[in-house]
């Protein structure tokens, strides 16, 4: 098979996988349950007590809210087989891992900004990246993570022809190649987000 056809066929296969999984979102009951858990956790932290009146009021009101607003929070989550396993891995492995790694990235970027402010060896530029994430929530979180990782700031997000592009202001431009710049800037964040979101 000629090489130009090979690239094209791989592109079509990737697009087919995406189409197939877009039809396979979470069922409605699981969406409602997940939204209810998130709202209930926030209510427990904000109210701060554990009496039964508090639990009853919070549970019923968050059930009413989650019964009609379930699409906003959980529409972009990846579908997996078991619901309980998904919730447990999300709450106890994936979110703490993401927070831990982002804290260290933020510390490194603070030191980098201090170094640039003292010695001013900057070479700024606006480059374009391509991501594999397609959903709105995943793209938003990726843009936020790129802003907090060292030396980069997201300017805009554009969607063209089923692909998502990010415009990134890079304070120390090393390469203009889209793939190499993507590896340099996104790092592992995109892979971790790709496990959770589309």
């Amino acid at each position: 098979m000629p090489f130009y056809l090979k690239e094209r066929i791989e592109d079509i296969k990737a697009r087919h996988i995406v189409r197939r999984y877009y039809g396979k979102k979470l069922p409605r009951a699981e969406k409602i349950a997940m939204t209810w858990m998130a709202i209930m956790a926030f209510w427990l932290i904000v109210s701060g007590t554990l009496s039964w009146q508090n639990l009853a009021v919070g549970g019923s009101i968050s059930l009413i809210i989650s019964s009609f607003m379930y699409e906003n929070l959980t529409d972009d989550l990846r579908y997996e087989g078991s619901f309980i396993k998904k919730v447990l891995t999300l709450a106890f492995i994936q979110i703490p891992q993401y927070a831990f790694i982002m804290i260290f990235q933020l510390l490194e970027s603070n030191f980098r900004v201090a170094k640039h402010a003292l010695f001013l060896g900057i070479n700024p530029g606006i480059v374009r990246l391509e991501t594999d994430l397609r959903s709105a929530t995943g793209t938003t979180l990726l843009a936020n993570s790129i802003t907090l990782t060292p030396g980069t700031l997201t300017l805009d997000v554009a969607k063209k022809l089923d692909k998502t592009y990010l415009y990134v202001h890079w304070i120390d431009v090393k390469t203009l190649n889209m793939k190499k710049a993507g590896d340099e800037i996104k790092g592992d964040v995109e892979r971790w987000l790709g496990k959770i979101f589309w």
Partner: protein
Amino acid sequence: MIEYALLAMGTSIMVFGALGILRFPDVYTRLHASTKCDTGGALSILIATALIIPAPPMIKVKILVLTFLIVMINPMISHAIARGAHRSGVEPKVVVDMYARDNP
């Protein structure tokens, strides 16, 4: 002991952010300094506060929720400011500008 180290680190990060805002050449590089140093400084100062204050653990968890909100909202605001500045014609001092090339 660790809370005082966190407080000192947060204030020094804030000072370096202010220095960066004064010394960097244009809007976008200044946004770098303000976003990252504000987020990191507020994060470490709030964690130190949560460790220092004599309060029940629910109050401390509320302060951690505050840090979460700051970390989520701060980059979005810088993103909005940078996009608005570029759209309204603030010229960036850069070596390459693919955004202006793709959106003439």
